[in-house]
């Protein structure tokens, strides 16, 4: 082959090689197999009751007729739904629901009661459980999901995998593991040793102790901290005080501004912060501290006993809430969010508590600072 043709061949090969990557793209341009706009979240699905509400709608839509038949006959009804889901409708009474022994190790039936429902112990419920009245779970049972129009009680050692919702009080005994969501229209109470992920109720109580009185507000008569008192104050622009380095609010003192601290923060005993606070370093509040606004921490956040926080609390690492502390209020529920959340018995929150990795109600014998997060 002469030089001329060789060069021509080389050019053609180079051109072909250059155009080769465009071939799949050209086909996609013509066919438009993946050209529609990305689907985006149009409804807000942050609501922790989302799945419970969806299941309730499913019950109303699909099971209403079956429930009515069972209610009228007073007898248990079992069968399969149109989509092949097996179900067992029990009339509901003081006695335990009769689940065949060979199904207890893995019960794939939808279990539904037209009234109250008591479940036997040591069951694994692989499908949803629903009670139109109160639902009392058996010990050491596992629930995929459960919905009760009345109260919902999990006995010690039980676990939920996806969600729980109660129209009235939701109670979890010692050592229960609540994965996914747990919510109530009235209250959620978790015994010591319970682990959780995402909770929501007008009132969330942790531990066996009854909720105590509201912690006393920080001394309103104490002199507010002035700019000159703050070492490391960089500016007070826009109503927020920016502090370089660490910050300490002395005992009993109060601060009436939003605060952003680049270092660590310590709020000493019975001090009062009227605004909100952002801490880039570790945050610690001693006994009796009150914060009217929000607390946002990039590192660990620790609240001692008897603290009060208006909320929300956002922590990017481990949050510890001391005994008797209160977050939010009945009139102004709020959100507590952290990677890990450790709660001492006697604390309470109003609204949502969301632990992304692990939440735990501590057992009273071990103080919070001596415990790590169990995997």
């Amino acid at each position, binding site marked *: 082959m002469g030089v001329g043709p060789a060069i021509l061949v080389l050019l053609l090969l180079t051109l072909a090689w250059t155009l080769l990557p465009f071939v799949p793209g050209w086909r*996609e*341009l013509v066919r438009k197999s993946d*050209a529609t706009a*990305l689907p985006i979240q*149009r409804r807000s699905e942050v609501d922790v009751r989302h799945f419970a509400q969806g299941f309730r709608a499913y019950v109303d839509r699909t099971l209403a007729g079956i429930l009515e038949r069972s209610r009228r006959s007073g007898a248990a009804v079992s069968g399969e739904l149109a989509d092949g889901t097996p179900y067992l409708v029990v009339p509901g009474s003081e006695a335990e629901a009769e689940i065949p022994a060979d199904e207890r190790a893995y019960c794939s039936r939808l279990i539904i009661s037209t009234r109250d429902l008591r479940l036997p112990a040591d069951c694994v419920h692989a499908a949803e459980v629903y009670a139109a009245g109160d639902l009392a779970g058996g010990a050491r049972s596992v629930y995929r999901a459960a919905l009760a129009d009345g109260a919902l009680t999990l006995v010690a050692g039980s676990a939920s995998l996806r969600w729980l919702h109660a129209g009235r009080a939701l109670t979890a005994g010692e050592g229960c593991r609540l994965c996914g969501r747990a919510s109530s229209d009235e209250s959620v109470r978790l015994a010591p040793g319970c682990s959780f992920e995402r909770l929501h109720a007008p009132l969330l109580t942790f531990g066996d102790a009854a909720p105590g009185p509201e912690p006393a507000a920080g001394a309103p008569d104490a002199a507010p901290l002035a700019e000159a008192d703050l070492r490391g104050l960089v500016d007070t622009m826009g109503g927020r005080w*920016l502090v370089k380095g660490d910050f300490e609010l002395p005992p009993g003192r109060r601060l009436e501004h939003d605060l952003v601290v680049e270092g660590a923060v310590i709020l000493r005993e019975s001090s009062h912060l009227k605004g909100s*606070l952002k801490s880039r370093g570790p945050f610690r509040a001693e006994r009796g501290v009150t914060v009217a606004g929000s607390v946002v921490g990039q590192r660990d956040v620790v609240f001692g006993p008897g603290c009060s926080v208006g909320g929300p609390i956002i922590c990017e690492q481990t949050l510890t809430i001391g005994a008797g502390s209160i977050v939010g209020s009945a009139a102004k529920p709020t959100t507590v969010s952290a990677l890990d959340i450790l709660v001492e018995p006697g604390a309470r929150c109003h609204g949502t508590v969301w632990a992304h990795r692990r939440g735990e109600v501590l057992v009273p014998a071990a103080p919070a600072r001596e415990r790590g997060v169990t995997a």
Partner: protein
Amino acid sequence: MDAERRTDRDLRAGYAHWWVLPVVVVVVFAAAVVAVVAALPVQDLPLPDPMRPLYVRIMLAALYLIIAIVVVNLIRHYYFTLNRLLGRQRHPYLDLDTADWPRVTVLIPAHNEERVIGDILTALLEVDYPRDRLRIMPLNDRSTDGTRAIVDGFAQAHAGLVTPFHREDGLAGKAAALQDALPLITDDIVLVFDADYIPGRGLIKQLVAPFFDPEVGAVMGRVVPLNADVNLLTRLLDLERAGGYQVDQQARMNLRLVPQYGGTVGGIRRRAVEAIGGWDVRSLAEDTDITMRLLLAGWKTVYQNRSECYEQVPETWRSRMRQIFRWARGHNQVLRKYGGRLLFNRRTRLAEKIDGLLLLNIYLMSPIVVLGWVLGVVLWYLGVTKPGLIVILAVTSYSTLGNFAVFFEIAAATHLDGTRSRVRLLPFIMAGFLVSLMAVARATVTQPFARPTRNVHWHKTERSERRSRWV
């Protein structure tokens, strides 16, 4: 892939030590380069040659500098993409579903928006934000079409909730309109949507949530092209937006760098903006300007990847070039005003300074790349072959239009979005880059000679007929 599954992929835990792999790769590569150079005969080493003419040595030095700049940007993009793929993702404010929600004003700047203004007002009336804490303020700036009548109709039907501001005089332009509206607003949180956007029900809460953090001065959500399927340009812009938001912005949020406020589908803290002097009415990029000034004053901008909203992207190359031209001028303007101040600002961390400067330099990359090409070719034909390795590196490092890492970023974004076939259009991104290259180079080269104009005009994407309003 539906929105929820895509979100799960977005929110996965990630690895704390994701950076080990890229560091190992860089170290191995550097060791290989050193080994190759060490094996070269002395006469072939890329050492300064005092016998060369001065102009050649200057050109070589300039080429080395350009290579360094390109490599820095390349590392930055790779770092962001790997962080997005492997690192721990930060969405600290996403969980806020229960709160004593503060009062908020939603501003909708509008100039001749009769085709779209009704849709956004309807969407805002359906949001799940507490009605008594919400105010919707259409900002009608001297519209000559039916915008005013439509807005007044909504105001009449929803008195107290929709409170329009009809602007009759003052400087033209979005920034000037926003600045004039600011004194009328008493709420501390102000969200801004362009008129052709359609917010979802939960979007207002999602955008307000970060303001519970007293350090936050601005928040930005993600814009998703609604008209992606129109032509090649819209498909390329869809890919670019994905790379820019899904990877770039979120990585900056993960790494606590400088996410950028984009002027729409976002919001500002009124006290913070007032404290820094309000919007710059002569700025061509008032969003970048606000981001930088807030940063200098110690306020942070946060990005919320899940706070998504549809937008209309340009459908013609002409309007795209105008858009890029304006953005380039605006960025360069902000760089000139605040670049030096950012370097010596005591309220920003070193990482923020570096990222902020790289962000502002982004529209200088095109003319730098072009200059690098020219230098490489000229030096080659001048017979400067001794540092051939360097010249080859220069050519290959930006033979993919200066920054292969951007392609990687866009591909990663499509993976995170769960899309499949649209990534095949990636080679066509070069066409988009060529167009951008021309527009940006022209904007940058002519900027020193541009006369300041009295009025900044309204710049907006041409409104096409509305596609399906909700997908």
